């Protein structure tokens, strides 16, 4: 039981994500989270504005149910399985973030500097969150997949388009982390 309350190392987490991959295909489906964004748009009535969203969202309802499960899984782990959220970050990461002015680094999963209510209620903070989400949603649908569809399924299936996408993920991620974050904070 003690194991359930500790953070899991990569060599436990990675193989368990592969188990999710296996289960979804075994159940006759696929593994791709970002297509849910389109299903949710269609569900929300986006079909009234764009022809594309007039598809029958019900055929993807299994994936929405999977997504609801993910929300519940987050709730369950937060309520009962994570007595302490402290993350064993590398010393270099803590050093870099304190240079940017971050405090309480790694004491919980999300930094207050971006995710606290106080940050959310500033114009800058609100737009950082909204634009971050916009880039994820726009980019994932442009590339035709996110971390699950491209980095996990695509790379596993030795897909060249996924390799190009993952290279893109890192070009964008490195540019944001090394160049833009120090300007924002």
């Amino acid at each position, binding site marked *: 039981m003690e194991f359930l309350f500790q953070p899991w*190392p*990569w*060599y*436990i*987490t*990675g193989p368990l994500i592969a188990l999710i*991959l296996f*289960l979804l295909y075994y159940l006759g489906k696929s593994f791709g989270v970002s297509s849910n*964004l*389109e299903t949710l*748009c269609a569900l*929300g009535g986006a079909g009234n504005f*764009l022809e594309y969203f007039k598809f029958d969202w019900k055929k993807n309802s299994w994936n929405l*149910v*999977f*997504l609801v*499960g993910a*929300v*519940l899984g*987050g*709730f369950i782990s*937060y309520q009962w399985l994570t007595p302490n959220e402290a*993350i064993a970050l*590398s010393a270099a990461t803590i050093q870099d973030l304190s240079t940017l002015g971050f405090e309480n680094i790694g004491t919980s*999963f*999300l*930094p207050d500097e971006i*995710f606290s209510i106080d940050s959310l209620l500033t114009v800058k903070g609100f737009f950082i*969150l*909204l634009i971050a*989400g*916009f*880039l*994820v*949603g*726009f*980019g*994932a*649908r*442009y590339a*035709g997949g996110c*971390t*699950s569809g*491209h*980095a996990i399924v695509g790379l*596993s*299936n030795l897909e060249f*388009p*996924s390799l*190009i*996408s993952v*290279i*893109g*993920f890192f*070009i*964008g*991620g490195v*540019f*944001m982390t090394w160049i*833009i974050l120090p300007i924002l904070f």
Partner: protein
Amino acid sequence: MRYLKFLLVGILFGIILSKGEVISWYRIYEMFKFQSFHMFGVIGSTVAIGIFLMILFKKGIIKTYWNDTIRVAPKRKGISRNLLGGTIFGLGWALAGACPGPMFILLGRGSIAIGIVILGALIGAFSYHSVKSKLPH
């Protein structure tokens, strides 16, 4: 009832990504700074097993529960689509510290701010389809 199994797999997914700290903004920052092996180990070991699974699917050694052959849909080709889309996604992934799965898992932890990120992601997905005819693919 036929959807219950997907709910259970989703719950498992949410717990695994939480316990593995994959949903932490800090872990994504650390990954893009190349300062820890953690995230590379997570994704790398998933893909290593994934490659093995895909081979078993293709050879028909693993079939679905209903004994059907498992087919994995190919990804759409196009350097522009994958490189530009991927780069835009990466910018957002590093800023939000969360990709689509973790966003929803974090919602389950009661983060209101992540709700704004999800709203942005929905607007982003909608916007892509509004302008896609003008984009290189």
